[in-house]
């Protein structure tokens, strides 16, 4: 099982080969190296997973910690390059490497005509390595390395088409907003080390499992700082604005980094540190409410947008909100379950949208699509599966995970605020309605309405098989991923819940029992029926507005002009930041530039340069270029020296 750390080294090897020699290698080989190293990394994870399952007695899952190398040892700070193998990290490593592998294969087709082919695969490999470092790390600092590493890759890949204007700016925006979050994360780590004297996950959990003399306010502070990091990385309100802009990157990047894996790092971190978060009921409630708010906030923006990828981006923000909602209510394993299924269907949706964009020769505006089901049937079916999964159509992956979240909210009675569960349940159900509506709006606009482009000129085409195979494989995951954790109502075994219990114990052990309590079955049934009905309403509404009464939306836009404009402008959050922070910041920076930088700093440097230059001007006539002058200087110098010595000796 120790071989798990090779899962990190393989993609790094791919990075080295493709990054250093990629330009001189044939394209096929570059793509093969990029994919194969990630495949090996998936194999390493799978091997470790199988070995792990084999080494466990039934139902009791231990954890293994491996110290590969000592890293920093100063006073009582002891950091290792080490890994923690437990159900949580194994599940994450498996998901990350599998989805990464499929996206890599897809990229071979999608990026086939791109100039920076080796660069793309080098960055993607680096991303996989960093993401695996993040999920497998056994201490907070190593996790932070991975955390920053994936942020770097995100920046590099958003700005991948650096010759255009928008992508580098979007990359910078993502980087800066992530800095804000990381600042909180770092302070959180410092506080953890200062008060708990360790950053090692197992040690921390050991320390926090019993009573402690540290007050609840301290834990609230630490947890909120750490959560700030999660807000930045997982694009939650108010730091969500970078994610929609990140869609400027190539679509496989949006699928892998900005939907399936990297943005879920925040959720993973909160779940990994569940033993810390559970010490502060207030912080957990903040997590839950912010998640719930972001879920419905982002879903409402997705209702009106027309860019096929931006809708999916807001959908991602909204789904991440769901995960935080679950985590905040103490249902950590459900958050991870939704993360797991979401990785599949959101990657599927993004990659399918990439196939659409590819087939439409770069068109992303849904208003200029329509009727594509005829031109690209396979993409259509995959998209449909993805849309059904994310909407929560029964028996697909999203149905089970979303339902588990809603039910967890339904039954939750947090100590701080008793009614929180009910409020969040209502928010979750409303978000489910919006989700179903905007997904099927997208389905109709893209695939099922009459074509709104010049069919003779544009000629959309189906994606090549190298792109379709990953789509179908992800579809399989999107359909069957949910069967790993069936609700108790079905009277079938829940595999994932107990598997994750060991790591996500705490509220977990009770929560899992709660899910299986017979008396709650009625509640679960009610919750499930309500969510199914709500989802169907959303689908039917989309069908009515975009199929049966085509054109009615134009009238609705006029009737609801104000809310429509607000939604279309994303609640003016970007504008608010621009006028409240960016513009004053720029003015201040310009003032500093004028006074301090040009006035003082440059002034001093220029003064030194001026003095030296003047001295040079003064002395340069001495250098005549005539040898006899120099000889004359030397001779007279010698004579002067003799005279001086004579005089001094007196």
């Amino acid at each position, binding site marked *: 099982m120790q071989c798990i750390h090779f899962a990190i080294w393989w993609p790094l090897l791919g990075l080295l080969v493709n990054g250093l020699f990629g330009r001189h290698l044939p394209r096929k080989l570059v793509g093969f190296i990029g994919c194969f190293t990630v495949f090996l990394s998936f194999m390493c994870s799978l091997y470790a997973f199988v070995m792990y399952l084999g080494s466990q007695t039934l139902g009791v899952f231990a954890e293994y910690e491996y110290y590969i190398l000592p890293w920093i040892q100063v006073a009582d700070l002891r950091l290792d390059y080490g890994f923690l193998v437990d159900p949580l990290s194994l599940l994450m490593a498996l998901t990350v490497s599998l989805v990464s592998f499929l996206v890599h294969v897809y990229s071979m087709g999608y990026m086939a005509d791109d100039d920076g082919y080796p660069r793309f695969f080098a960055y993607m490999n680096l991303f996989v390595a960093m993401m695996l470092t993040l999920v497998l790390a056994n201490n907070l600092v190593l996790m932070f390395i991975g955390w920053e590493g994936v942020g770097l890759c995100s920046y590099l890949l958003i700005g991948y088409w650096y010759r255009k204007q928008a992508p580098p700016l979007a990359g910078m925006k993502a980087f800066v907003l992530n800095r804000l979050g990381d600042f909180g994360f770092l302070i959180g780590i410092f506080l953890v080390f200062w008060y708990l004297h360790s950053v090692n996950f197992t040690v921390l959990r050991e320390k926090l499992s019993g009573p402690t003399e540290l007050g609840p306010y301290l834990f609230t502070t630490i947890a909120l700082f750490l959560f700030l990091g999660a807000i930045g990385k997982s694009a939650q309100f108010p730091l969500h604005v970078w994610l929609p802009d990140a869609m400027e990157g190539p679509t496989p990047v949006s699928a892998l980094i900005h939907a399936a894996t990297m943005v879920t790092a925040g959720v993973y971190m909160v779940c990994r540190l569940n033993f810390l978060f559970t010490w502060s009921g207030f912080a957990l409630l903040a997590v839950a409410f912010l998640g719930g708010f972001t879920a419905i906030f982002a879903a409402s923006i997705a209702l009106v947008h027309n860019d096929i990828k931006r809708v999916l981006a807001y959908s991602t923000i909204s789904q991440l909100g769901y995960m935080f909602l679950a985590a905040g209510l103490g249902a950590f394993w459900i958050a991870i379950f939704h993360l797991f299924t979401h990785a599949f269907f959101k990657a599927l949706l993004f990659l399918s949208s990439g196939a659409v964009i590819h087939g439409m020769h770069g068109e992303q505006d849904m208003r200029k699509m329509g009727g594509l089901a005829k031109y690209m049937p396979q993409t259509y079916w995959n998209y449909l599966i993805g849309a059904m999964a994310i909407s929560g159509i029964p028996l697909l992956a999203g149905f089970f995970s979303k339902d588990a979240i809603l039910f967890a909210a339904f039954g939750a009675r947090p100590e701080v605020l008793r009614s929180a569960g009910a409020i969040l349940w209502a928010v979750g159900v409303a978000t489910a309605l919006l989700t179903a509506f905007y997904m099927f709006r997208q389905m109709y606009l893209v695939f099922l309405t009459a074509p709104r482009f010049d069919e003779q000129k544009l000629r959309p085409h189906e994606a090549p098989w190298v792109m379709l195979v990953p789509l179908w494989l992800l579809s399989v995951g999107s359909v069957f991923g949910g069967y790993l954790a069936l609700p108790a109502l079905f009277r079938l075994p829940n595999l994932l819940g107990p598997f994750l219990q060991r790591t996500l114990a705490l509220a977990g052990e009770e929560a899992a029992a709660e899910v299986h309590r017979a008396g709650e079955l009625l509640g679960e049934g009610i919750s499930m029926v309500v969510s199914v009905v709500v989802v169907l309403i959303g689908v039917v509404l989309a069908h009515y507005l975009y199929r049966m009464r085509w054109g009615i939306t134009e009238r609705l836009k006029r009737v609801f002009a104000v809310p429509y404009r607000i939604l279309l402008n994303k609640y003016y959050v970007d504008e608010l930041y621009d006028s409240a922070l960016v513009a004053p910041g720029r003015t201040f920076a310009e003032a500093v530039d004028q006074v301090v930088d040009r006035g003082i700093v440059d002034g001093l440097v220029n003064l030194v340069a001026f003095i030296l230059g003047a001295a040079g001007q003064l002395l340069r006539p001495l*250098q*005549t270029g005539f040898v006899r002058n120099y000889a004359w200087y030397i001779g007279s110098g010698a004579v002067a020296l003799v005279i001086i010595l004579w005089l001094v000796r007196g």
Partner: protein
Amino acid sequence: MERIVVYSLVLSGLLFSMGMLGVVVRRHPLVMFMCIELMLNAANLAFIAFAWHLQEVSGQVYALIVMAVAAAEVAVGLAIIVAVYRYRADVDIDDVSTLRG
């Protein structure tokens, strides 16, 4: 001080001054070289004279070292002169003044 030492030092001073004057006023590099040799040999003579006066052998050793250095210097200097001549077909020392400040 013995008379011979005094004469030698006077001769050495005269030779040195002649060399110095030559270096400063002549414009042909070969002549300048000869003048430099003159100066070096004047110094040698002074070394020898002092060695005699002080009954000390190190002065003579220094004279030998100066000769070795002079030989090396001539080798380098003549090579430079030849190179300059090949490049400009002329060796007037005042024309070679591109390093003027």
